[in-house]
């Protein structure tokens, strides 16, 4: 049953999403792309691009997109509500604990200790996403099927992000426009 599968998957994603936004990409990708094949790697990156250009958090956007694609509007409701449900319960419990003890040191300590794991997950997601953009998948990484335009564009925008403090939204938009021009004239 697709609704149950959506609810189960997005509930678990919601429960283990630490660090916000791009930090959870590998968790979401592993469930949505690798386990269930609800999206392809390319569609997954498309959704990150679209999310940067529409309001709302990345996680909600992905839950809504996947829900609609797999099971229509009921699917959207199932996936999105399941995604926020664990946060709802945990935040309310934490709020009560806070008003009772006014001390979050233990929680903050554990979360600080999770920073290396979060960094590792971002690294893993980056490898998959870069692999897909440059070679159509990290497994197929070879000089022969390298997308030269994608490599050059990614490196240019990396420099702009690092040195010129260009924002992520602007980077993705500009790379879309310049990429379209390059692919049109040089060929895909």
């Amino acid at each position: 049953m697709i609704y149950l599968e959506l609810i189960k998957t997005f509930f678990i994603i919601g429960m283990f999403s630490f660090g916000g936004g791009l930090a959870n990409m590998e968790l979401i990708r592993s469930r949505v792309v690798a386990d269930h094949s609800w999206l392809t790697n390319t569609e997954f990156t498309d959704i990150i691009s679209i999310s940067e250009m529409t309001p709302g958090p990345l996680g909600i956007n992905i839950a809504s997109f996947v829900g609609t694609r797999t099971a229509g509007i009921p699917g959207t409701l199932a996936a999105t509500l399941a995604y926020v449900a664990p946060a709802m319960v945990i935040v309310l419990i934490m709020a009560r604990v806070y008003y009772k003890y006014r001390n979050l040191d233990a929680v903050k300590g554990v979360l600080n200790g999770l920073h290396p794991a979060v960094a590792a997950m971002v690294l893993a997601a980056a490898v998959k996403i870069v692999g897909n953009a440059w070679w159509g998948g990290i497994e197929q990484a070879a000089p022969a099927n390298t997308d030269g335009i994608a490599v050059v564009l990614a490196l240019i925008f990396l420099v702009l992000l690092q040195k010129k403090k260009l924002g992520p939204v602007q980077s993705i938009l500009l790379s879309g426009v310049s990429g379209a021009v390059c692919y049109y004239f040089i060929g895909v």
Partner: protein
Amino acid sequence: MESGQAIQTASQPAAQSARKADAHTLWTLFKTCFIISGCTFGGGMVIISMLQKKFVEELKWISQEEVMDLVAIAQSCPGVMAVNTSIIIGYRIAGVGGALLTVAGTVLPPMIILTIISTCYVQFRSNQLVALILKGMQAGVAAVMINVTLTMSGNVLKKKEVLSAAMLVCAAAAILLFDADVILVIIVCGCISGLLTWRHMKEAKTR
């Protein structure tokens, strides 16, 4: 002095909510979250600063000191920070019902927008121009991901703690080379971090 004040205001959520939770308050809660969520691009921190501005500076429903603590709680919980912040603001002002309303207000705009995009995605993607732009954007997203990776890993390595660095390397290797489940990695790292925190706190107590 300041933190003392924050604790005082924080200690009376029940009294506050009883006074304020009328229909107009509830409508304002929902409307504010809906508008902010629907009009704010750039995610996380941007939405939170908008919520702060509205609830602290304009409506004066929550004090600046308390809102800092509430944001800290929202950040310590799993899930989306903007949603968590709206949950806790709703709860603070009108109890669990308020939290349900603010969450609905925050989630609905992106949900509606993405449902529409998702429905049109296939046609949209088959347009040649759109396909080329999205292909170009793949490189932009790749650049953003490399950039975030460099920043986050750099921050961990900068601390020059052997254990953090080892955790980073082992976790990345487990996911990339051995195809380990991401959730398993989070749980293992969380346990290690929990043990360390517990030891720290015990040491701090005995000192």
